[in-house]
C-alpha cells in the first residue's frame, strides 16, 4: 500500500520534471537538445533564436497592455501618498530589470550551462546512476514543492488582477496573459537552478550514505581495515563542489534579483495595504483581504523555498564532515586509508558547499531570517514615513 503510494509519488515527481523541461522548451528558455547517442546535450541555434523572438514579443505585449492592467485602487493610493508612487515606479523598474536580466543571462550563459549540465549528466551516468535513490525523500518533496509553488504563483496573479479590477476587456486579458507567461518564464529559470541544486544535493546525500556504510562495515568486522572507496568518493565530492560553484556562478544575477524582487513585493504590498486601510481609512472588504493574504503567503512561501533548498544542501554537506568524524573510533585502520581520510577532512575544512552570490550573501536559513527581519524593519520605517506625511498633510 505504502509502496504503491510511494511509486505514485515518484511518478508525480517525474511529471514535475518533465513539465519543467517541456514548458521551458516551449518558452524558449532551454535551448538544448538531448543527443541520446552520446548521452550529452547540445545547444541548438534554432531554439535560441526562437526563444529570443518569443520573449521579445511577450515583452512588447506586456508593455503595450500595461496600463490596462492597472487598478483604480492604486491611483487613490498614489494621490494620497506620493512616496508610494515613487516606490511603485522604482519597483516596476526593478521587476522589468529582473525580467530582462534573467532572459539575457539565460541566453548569454547558455553555453556554460550546457557544459555544466553535461558534466552533471556524465557524473550521473558514471557514478551515481547505480545507487538506489528511491528513499531520498527530500529530493522528491522539494521538486514537488517547487512545482506547486510555481502553479500557485500563477493562479494568485490571475486572482489578484481580476479581483482588483472588475472591468474586463481584451486589453486586460492580453496584458494579463503576457505578464503571466513572462512570470512563468522567470519561475522556470529559477526552477532550473533549483533542480540543479537538488541534483547536487542528492549526489552529496549519496556520498554521505556511502561513507556511513563504509564506517559501519569497518566497525562491524574488524578484519576489514582497508578500502579503496574513499579516494573515489573524495574525488566525486571535490568535483561536485567545483560544479556547484560554477552553477552558482551561472545563476548569480537571476537568483539574486529574484530574491530581491520577492522581498520587495512583500514589503511594498504590506505597505500599500496598511496605507490603504490605516491612513486612507478605506474599509477593506473581506474578499480583498483574502486576496491580499493569499498573494502574500504564496510569495513568502516561494521566497522561503529558495532559502530552504539551499539550506538543505548546505546541511547535507555539513553532515559529511560529521560523518568523517565517525572514522575516529575505529581502532587500527590501514595507513593508506588514514591518509585519504585526513586529506578528505582537510579539504572539507578548506572548502564547503556554499551558495554565495557575488560574495555578498550566502544563502542559508540564517541569511533568510536576517532578510525577513530587515524587510520588517524597512516596512515599519515606510509606514512611519507615511505617518509623517499624514501629519504634514493634515495641517
Amino acid at each position: 500500500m505504502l509502496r504503491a503510494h510511494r511509486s505514485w509519488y515518484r511518478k508525480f515527481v517525474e511529471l514535475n520534471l518533465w513539465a519543467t523541461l517541456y514548458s521551458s522548451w516551449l518558452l524558449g528558455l532551454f535551448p538544448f537538445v538531448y543527443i541520446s547517442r552520446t548521452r550529452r546535450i547540445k545547444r541548438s541555434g534554432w531554439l535560441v533564436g526562437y526563444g529570443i523572438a518569443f520573449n521579445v514579443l511577450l515583452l512588447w505585449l506586456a508593455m503595450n497592455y500595461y496600463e490596462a492592467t492597472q487598478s483604480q485602487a492604486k491611483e487613490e493610493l498614489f494621490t494620497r501618498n506620493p512616496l508610494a508612487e515613487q516606490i511603485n515606479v522604482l519597483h516596476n523598474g526593478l521587476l522589468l530589470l529582473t525580467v530582462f536580466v534573467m532572459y539575457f543571462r539565460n541566453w548569454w550563459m547558455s553555453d556554460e550551462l550546457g557544459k555544466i549540465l553535461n558534466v552533471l549528466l556524465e557524473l550521473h551516468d558514471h557514478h551515481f546512476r547505480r545507487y538506489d535513490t528511491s528513499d531520498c525523500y527530500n529530493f522528491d518533496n522539494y521538486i514537488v514543492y517547487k512545482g506547486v509553488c510555481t502553479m500557485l504563483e500563477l493562479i494568485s496573479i490571475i486572482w489578484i488582477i481580476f479581483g482588483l479590477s472588475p472591468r474586463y476587456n481584451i486589453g486586460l486579458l492580453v496584458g494579463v496573459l503576457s505578464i503571466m507567461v513572462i512570470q512563468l518564464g522567470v519561475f522556470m529559470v529559477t526552477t532550473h537552478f533549483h533542480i540543479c541544486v537538488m541534483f547536487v544535493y542528492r549526489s552529496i546525500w549519496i556520498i554521505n550514505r556511502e561513507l556511513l556504510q563504509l564506517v559501519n562495515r569497518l566497525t562491524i568486522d574488524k578484519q576489514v581495515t582497508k578500502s579503496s572507496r574513499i579516494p573515489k568518493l573524495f574525488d566525486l565530492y571535490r568535483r561536485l563542489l567545483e560544479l556547484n560553484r560554477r552553477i552558482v556562478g551561472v545563476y548569480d544575477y537571476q537568483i539574486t534579483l529574484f530574491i530581491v524582487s520577492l522581498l520587495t513585493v512583500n514589503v511594498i504590498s504590506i505597505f500599500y495595504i496598511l496605507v490603504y486601510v490605516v491612513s486612507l481609512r478605506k474599509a477593506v472588504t473581506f474578499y480583498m483581504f483574502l486576496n491580499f493574504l493569499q498573494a502574500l503567503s504564496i510569495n513568502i512561501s516561494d521566497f522561503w523555498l529558495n532559502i530552504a533548498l539551499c539550506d538543505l544542501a548546505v546541511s547535507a554537506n555539513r553532515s559529511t564532515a560529521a560523518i568523517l568524524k565517525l572514522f575516529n573510533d575505529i581502532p587500527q585502520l590501514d595507513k593508506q586509508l588514514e591518509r585519504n581520510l585526513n586529506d578528505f577532512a582537510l579539504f572539507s575544512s578548506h572548502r564547503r558547499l556554499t551558495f554565495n552570490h557575488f560574495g555578498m550573501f550566502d544563502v542559508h536559513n540564517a541569511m533568510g531570517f536576517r532578510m525577513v527581519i530587515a524587510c520588517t524593519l524597512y516596512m515599519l520605517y515606510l509606514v512611519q514615513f507615511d505617518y509623517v506625511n499624514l501629519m504634514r498633510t493634515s495641517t
Partner: protein
Amino acid sequence: MSPNTWVIEMNSHKSRLFTHPQAHPRSQLSNDAFARRAVSNDNPVFEDISTILSVLKASGLLPFYEQLSSYEVGPPSKTNEFYSFFVRGVVHALTIFNIYSLITPNSAQLFFSLRETDNVNQWIELLLCIFTYTLTVFVCARNTKSMLEIMNEILKLDKEVLRQFGVVLSNNCNFSVKFLVVIVCCQAYIMVLRIYAVKGAITPTSYILIAFYAFQNGLTATYIVFASALLRIVCIRFHFVNQLLNAFTYVQQQKLAKKSRRQPPVSNMEHFPEDSLFIYRTHNKLLRIYKSINECCSLIIVCFLGYSFYTVTTNWYNLFVQITNNKGIISAHILQWCLAWLCLHTSLLALLSRSCGATTYEANSTSQILARVYGKSKEFQNIIDKFLTKSIKQEVQFTAYGFFAIDNSTLFKIFSAVTTYLVILIQFKQLEDSKLEEQVQNEV
C-alpha cells in the same frame, strides 16, 4: 572544571574491562567527589528531573514510557498512549474554543484598556501564546519516538561509562524544580492580577480563558526548562569526556611525574590508545544526541523565542508608557503585571541561553584539550592527529532552526532587538500623540 559536577563512585577494579596497575589518573580528578554510594539499580531513571518529567507526562507532552531496566526505557503501554492522546485532544478542543471566544465578543471584558494599542497587543500576545503551545503539543506528539531514543542513548552511554570506569554520572538538574516553582508562582500571580483587574462580574468564559492562558504559558515554559535540563545532562557527559582527556595533557603528566618522584616515575600514557578510542566514540555519540535534541526542540524554541521577544517588548513599552505619563500616578497594577512577565521571560531566556552556551562550549573544547596531549611515540601522534584533523573548523552550534545560534550572547542579541523595536514603537506613540494634540487644537 569543578569535579563535583558529577558524582563518582569507584567500584573495585575488576568491574572494569581492563585493569590499570596503579591508581588511574582519573581517580584524582574527582578525589573530593566520592560523595554518595552508587544509586541502587531499581530507582527511576533521571530521578533528578523526575518532577518536571511527571508534569510533562501528565500534560501529554511526553509519553508515559515504561522503564525496562535501570538503563533502558521502553515505549509507553497502550493505556498510557491513549491517555496522552486524550489529553492532547482536550487541549486542542480548548484551544479551538478559546479562539472562538476570542473572536466573538464573549471575551470583551478581558480587553479593558484606555488605549486601543494595548488591547491589540494583548490580543496578539494571546494568539501567539496559543500558537506556541499548540505547536509545542504537535511537535511533541510527532517527536515521541525520537525523544525516547534520546533518553535511551543517554542511558546506554551512562551504562557504558559505569561499566568502563565504574562511574555513575549524576545529572544535577535541581534548577529544574526551582524554575518550576518560579513559573507556577508567576502564572498564578498574573492570573490573580488579571482577575482583579476585570471590572464587574466575570463570566465563566473569561475564567476559562484566563486559566487556560496561564496553563499554556506555564507548560510552554516548562518544556523550555525540560529542554535546558536535557542540555545540561548532555553538557555533563561532555564535561566528563573532557576530564578524562584532561588527565592525559602535559600539565597533568608533569604533575603526576612530580607526585610520583620517589617511586620510579611511570607514565600512564600507555592507557591512552584504548581510552582515546572510548573517548572518541563517546564524543561522537554525544554529538549525535546533541544534534537530535536540537532537531527535536528547535522549532519549539524558535516559537518560544519569538513569543517571549514579543512579550518582553510590549511589557517594556507598557512600563515606559507608565513611567512617562506624568499626568496621573503610575498604576501599580500594570507595573506588577509587567514586572512579573519580564522576570519570568528573562529568567527563562537566561536559562536557555546559558545551558546552550555551556553545552556548546564543552562540545567544542574537546579538541582544544586534546591539543594539549603530547604523545611521545608516533602512534600516539597519529591518534591525536586523526581527531584534530577532522575537527578543524567544525564547531558545533545549537541553532534555533538554523536561524541563529543560541549561546551566551543570545540574551543580549534579543534585548538589542527589543530596543530597536522599542524605538520604533515610541516614535509611533509620539506621532499618534502629536496627532491627538493637533486634533484638540483644531477643535479649540
